[in-house]
């Protein structure tokens, strides 16, 4: 048995933020996770509120009304200040982080509109500086540059859709020798870390560019030193260069993981990956300890506070079983937002608002789980949001992770009634 002030379950954005901020506040923290989290799959942007349901120009302006209209939404529990504060925290951690010079750009006042891999424009509030040049509000033409070596990125498809959105764009292909059939963005990002390789690439690209074009490349401009790779490329090409998120694996997402992991570690927090929670020890209305599967024997982690950051349906932390019963699989907590018996759970149109989509762990006004008073719930486990249609996932993760840490720290020293200390 190991004892901590707080145990965080899950190592996606919400869990790492909660863990890092708890550790920064002086708590002894251990983050346990079944595997690597969602950071590696998401674009690395912080989408706060993109659609409500119309496209949102300014999250800062839209949030108060959104919170009033959607009392069941995580943002209504968190409040606009928590969102703004957590964005500021992240910016500072990016700057102090392990990637020299790397920054996030953008403010809560205005969503940037950035091209996706297929050239759809995505609203996002806070984005890696390496992506900011893709903002549709910027003047001028765009050259989208792809390579047949990179799977699942088609420059002409991306450019064609940008043209449909009113941006003058064209697609270009540059051959990259990868010694295999194709390569993912991470493999190419390693090549961009190499200054010599990058210079040769820039020289081959420069001759294909026209005078007033800015350059959109798949998000692969450096794994270890993205700021160096990106600014070097801008200099060599003499124009703005921006990254366009790729299909997974996501290189900017992996950078975000490294930034958050480093913040957690520097503040003294532990991270245990590969440790799936398989057993829960209760003490009245509280969780006393969780056990994770390790090798031969399970490992128990006890704490006065737990933060559940294991995600929702997408991660498998919430499931609908073959008997049509919904479960929170990690701690067995009650859920909220379930369609009433007899009501439809799903509708036929795939992209329509699905009634099941808002299911999450039932919480009180301070993120505490119903039926487990020392468990704070954060991120995609919270009920009431449809992050993929609202473009709100990272904003919720960041703000709820921050808020949970703040609430736990404020109560530190005090043990919830019923919990065996």
């Amino acid at each position, binding site marked *: 048995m*190991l004892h901590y002030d707080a145990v965080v379950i899950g190592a996606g954005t919400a869990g790492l933020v909660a863990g890092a901020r708890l550790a920064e506040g002086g708590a002894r923290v251990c983050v346990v996770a079944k595997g690597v989290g969602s950071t590696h799959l998401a674009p690395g942007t912080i989408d706060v509120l993109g659609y409500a349901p119309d496209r949102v120009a300014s999250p800062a302006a839209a949030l108060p009304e959104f919170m009033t209209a959607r009392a069941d939404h995580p943002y209504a529990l968190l409040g606009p200040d928590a969102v703004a504060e957590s964005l500021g925290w992240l910016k500072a951690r990016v700057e102090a982080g392990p990637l020299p010079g790397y920054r996030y750009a953008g403010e809560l006042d205005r969503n940037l509109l950035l091209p996706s891999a297929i050239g759809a424009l995505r609203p996002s509030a806070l984005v890696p500086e390496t992506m900011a040049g893709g903002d549709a509000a910027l003047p001028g033409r765009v050259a989208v540059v792809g390579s047949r070596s990179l799977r699942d990125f088609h420059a002409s498809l991306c450019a064609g859709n940008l043209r449909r959105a009113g941006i003058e764009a064209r697609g270009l292909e540059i051959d990259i020798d990868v010694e295999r059939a194709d390569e993912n963005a991470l493999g190419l990002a390693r090549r961009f870390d190499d200054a010599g390789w990058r210079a040769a690439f820039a020289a081959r690209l420069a001759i294909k560019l026209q005078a007033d074009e800015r350059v959109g490349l798949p998000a692969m401009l450096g794994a270890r030193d993205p700021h160096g790779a990106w600014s070097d490329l801008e200099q060599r090409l003499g124009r703005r260069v921006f990254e366009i998120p790729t299909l997974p694996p996501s290189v900017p997402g992996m950078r975000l993981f490294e930034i958050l992991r480093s913040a957690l570690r520097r503040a003294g927090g532990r991270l245990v990956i590969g440790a799936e929670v398989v057993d829960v020890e209760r003490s009245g209305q509280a969780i006393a300890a969780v056990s994770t599967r390790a090798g031969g024997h399970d490992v128990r982690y006890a704490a006065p506070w737990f933060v559940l950051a294991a995600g929702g349906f997408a991660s498998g932390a919430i499931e609908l079983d073959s008997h049509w019963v919904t479960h929170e699989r990690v701690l067995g907590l009650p859920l909220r937002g379930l369609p009433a018996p007899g009501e439809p759970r799903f509708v036929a149109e795939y992209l329509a608002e699905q009634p099941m989509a808002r299911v999450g762990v039932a919480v009180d006004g301070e993120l505490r789980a119903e039926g487990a008073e020392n468990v704070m719930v954060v991120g995609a486990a919270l009920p009431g949001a449809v992050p993929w249609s609202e473009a709100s996932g990272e904003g919720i993760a960041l703000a709820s992770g921050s808020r949970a840490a703040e609430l736990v720290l404020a109560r530190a020293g005090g043990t919830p009634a019923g919990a065996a200390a």
Partner: protein
Amino acid sequence: MSSVTTPIDELLRGSLDHCVKCTICETQCPVSNVTPLFPGPKYAGPQAERYRVSDEPSVEWSVDYCSGCGICSMSCPQGVKIAEINAQARHKLKVQKGIPLRDRIITRPTWLGRAGTPVAPLANFTLGFRPLRVLGEKTLGVHRNGPAPKFAGRRFSRWARSHAAPATGRKIVYFHGCGTEYYEPWEGQKVVEILEHNGFRVEVPKQDCCGLPLQSSGLFDDARKVVLRLARALAPHVRDDPDTIIVGNATSCTLMLKREAREILDLENDPDLALVAERTYDICELLLELHDRGELKTDFKPVNERVAYHAPCQQQGHYIGKPALELLALIPELEVSEMNARCCGIAGTYGLKAEKYDIAMAVGADLFSQVRDSGADTVACDSETCRWQITHGTGRSSVHPIDFLHRAYGL
């Protein structure tokens, strides 16, 4: 291979349906990120597995380039047993292709140790003698530059027999492994002295190899015999007392006992192995638990040094985080830098093989440069083969983390 599906097949193959093709394992794989010869854990594992039929020839040869480090399984957020599936596939491939003489030799640390120890100066000269290494590469396929350890010329077990154990104290069983027995007996002495300092009475049963090298080279039948022999040797020492545990400093060998032998070699139902698996602790795991209970002595003297710590893949496979870091943090004045690289490349015997040496060095390059940048003179690392590889790749000395605890205790 029998055409009857075994429970292990079901367990491993059953997990592959959980693969959502998210690519997280591909971001973590040390090997596929440096060579096109291995297309990656997702492709070779959950994807190719659908085309493997138990009594038909293997369709996929690249899986031989998987080093078996296990990081893919650890990282998978859906619980797919990727490395274990690949280990099974590698075994099938080896059975089909025939097992090279080299793989029958270098996977037998006990044979090598017994042969080399009495003639250590000669054996060490041979292993360091370039023309013979070139010959070894040409005839056997053991790379001329592969980091071969030096025989200590004495065996740990001999020291243990002559060592006067304290008459009282809580009993603990020490599994030292072959690296300690033949190459680094001083590591075993330090383990014993640290445990005795903390009030344990250390029992050292007669023991042998855990079978991991055989298993990772695909020689499953031999690996089963070897690991079960070890389980039979250790189990009687813990069977009668539920509080007695087994502790080891060879982190890959303790992982073999805890989990890998059962999961990969289809030995889930062996009662001796199940008992040993349940009771086995990595030394740093145990010391951290003691510290958590307030039972670890913390009379550490300052060690004014800089050390780089690398957690080997097989240590991370215990799924317990990096307890060594927490322990090193207890030593006053010791400046510890956590390395953030994937793997040193050696993966047991992988980096010794002629066709894989360059891959192993490319895998380790990231770690080697982090070590050099850290400014540390010494690298702490929980696995012996990784230590030898790190020293080979960086020129820095490399020790088990407990070396620093031993020094700080002033033992």
